[in-house]
């Protein structure tokens, strides 16, 4: 464990062999989210407490009297992972300061899905980040309410058919664009914000490790491929995650102290159709809608590049003094 701590970056051989999120859970075949959680836990290490919002992950991992968790784990409700996580952080902090628990750095981590983060959990997430708890929040975004049967959320992409945004004669499916929660977190002045994907395991784990070291709030938005909800083949999970990045649909970047950096560079973006065509949720799309999606992806990607090229680290921003004269 100490060896890993001394390295800034992970290499495959340095990954913890210990399993903190164990096999035997009930996730669907090809679940990108379960894979991501396993990797996240390995990057976090044993000195971690996880607060889990209601969703697929709580359901598949905690059938009483069994548990897949080898980390201390707590679940209360759907929308309050950040609130419970901030309580865990405050409790551990007080108990450690008062000498009631061992004097050791134990990280509080809150996890929830896109519904539990971007919709119903937005308030408690915003509150926890604003208060500045030493808390890592990871959103595992599979782009709909998969646990309840694939209903649309604010994370569902434009054009996707879900059970509450179905495609029909009068509709091409989801009519709104995905909410940009990482950007909302940056607006909270959170010191570390990143997007991630288990299809890029070392990139993901490095980000988790970086976030763990932040003494304050941090946020990782992890795209989690859901074969069940996306109507994609379960053996294509890793490939789907890669295509999301290669097409620019879900760029991998981090924002450290306000400084944007793309962590997985893509020389030339592939057409979005390469990503859409493997997924049944986009099967109904006509070329004109695909064109709209393509334009939007370019636009968003350019917005991101603008930030990467134009924005400075907050700590580099110094006033010349005129403001106060």
């Amino acid at each position: 464990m100490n060896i890993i701590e001394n390295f800034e970056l992970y290499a495959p051989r340095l990954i913890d062999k210990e399993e903190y999120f164990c096999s035997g859970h009930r996730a669907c075949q090809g679940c990108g989210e379960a894979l991501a959680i396993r990797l996240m836990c390995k990057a976090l290490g044993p000195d971690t407490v996880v607060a889990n919002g209601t969703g697929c992950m709580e359901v598949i991992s905690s059938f009483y009297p069994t548990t897949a968790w080898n980390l201390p784990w707590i679940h209360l409700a759907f929308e309050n992972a950040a609130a419970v996580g901030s309580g865990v952080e405050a409790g551990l902090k007080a108990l450690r300061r008062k000498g009631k628990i061992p004097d050791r750095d134990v990280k509080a981590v809150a996890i929830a899905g896109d519904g539990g983060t971007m919709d119903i959990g937005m308030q408690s997430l915003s509150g926890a980040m604003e208060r500045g708890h030493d808390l890592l929040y990871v959103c595992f975004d599979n782009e709909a309410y998969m646990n309840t049967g694939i209903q649309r959320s604010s994370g569902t992409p434009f054009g996707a058919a879900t059970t509450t945004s179905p495609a029909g004669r009068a509709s091409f499916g989801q009519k709104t664009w995905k909410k940009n929660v990482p950007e909302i977190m940056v607006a909270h002045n959170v010191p570390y914000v990143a997007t991630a994907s288990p299809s890029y395991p070392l990139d993901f784990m490095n980000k988790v490790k970086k976030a763990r070291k932040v003494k304050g709030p941090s946020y990782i938005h992890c795209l989690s491929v859901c074969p069940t909800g996306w109507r994609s083949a379960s053996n294509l999970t890793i490939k789907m995650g890669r295509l999301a990045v290669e097409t620019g649909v879900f760029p991998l970047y981090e924002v450290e102290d306000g400084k944007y950096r793309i962590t997985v560079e893509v020389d030339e973006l592939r057409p979005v159709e390469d990503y859409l065509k493997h997924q049944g949720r986009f099967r109904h799309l006509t070329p004109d809608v695909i064109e709209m999606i393509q334009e939007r992806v370019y636009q968003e990607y350019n917005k991101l590049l603008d930030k990467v090229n134009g924005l400075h680290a907050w700590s580099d921003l110094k006033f010349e003094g005129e403001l106060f004269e």
Partner: protein
Amino acid sequence: MAKRVGMEVGIAAAEAVGMCNIDMAAVYPITPQSHIAEHLSEIVADGRIDAEFVTVESEHTSISCVSGASATGARVYTATSSQGLLYMHEILPIVSAMRLPVVMGNANRAISGPINIWNDHSDIMPQRDAGWIVLFADNGQEVVDLTIQSFKIAEHKEVMLPICLNMDGFQLTHTVELIEFPDQKKVDKFLPPRKPLATLHPDNPVSMGTLGMPEIYAEARKSQDVALINSKQYILQIWDEWEKMFGRRYKPVETYRADDAEILMLTMGSMGETAELAVDQLREKGMSVGLVKLRLWRPFPFEELKAAVKNAKLLIVTDRAVSFGGSGGPVYIEVKAGLYHEKERPLIYNYIIGLGGRDVPVPCFVEMFEAAAQSAEKGIVKDYEYYGVRG
């Protein structure tokens, strides 16, 4: 030495929490709880206690946040009122099911609508079945005593349940009363640091709040009911201990001039003291009246209630909340059901009083006693009635 001071009861509630060596509190402000929140934050800001004070963005988060902290083994406190308590509603049964010893003060206030910040019990009544221990205080002294006792009761290893201590908003929280504060050393002796059975810590990883399938859910619910019913004996034990150390006796059902009374009135909360004055006046007139005050709303003290009313001919139950479309106020429904199997039981009347801060002074209680007595004498049995309400 215990000291007696004149103090606003809301401030005193925070002072009592400050004596309990809490590790963490999370509070969201709401009238009339706000003085508790403010003063507790002052106690922390002045370094008088070593605790994390988390100023959350909602009551849903305050209850979630203290639950997370409680699960790490911390001693925690929160306080709320009215809409805030309703906003917590979703989380309340989870806290009790997870057996987290959260202590919460509730400054009782009416619920919307119309929006109203004044006192009644319509906020706590919808939380009846959340599985919490629910206590009512009658005056400022009781608020202080019950607050300190609550931590000991909640954390008792045979109890392990959250407690909601109700104190009437404004009538109690904003009233200055003479209160005797116990000696800190004695409080420390009465209330040693929390010894949790299982906590969220990597040295012994546990999973809390897991999924219960149909084959286990019913057992989980039953065991929770058993735990709440069993908690009464430990509450009584702790009240005995309190009496031995501090001299004040607490009972699940308090009585006032009730032993030989033919007509009893039942109250819950701060109106009990007003009703006592009415009892005194009527006793002087020669009317055989007395008072029964419910302190413990959950677990409901059926045995104590039966013993208290067994000789009465008429029992007037007062309610400070409405159960719309039901057979009466919530307290009345509970009391009537509890006495149904008794061979000897009094006639039971129900007045719904004091909604949304409507004042109920002594003459009103006198009138209620007299009106119910006359009605009963004529053999008229009525269900619930709104006292002094137009329309």
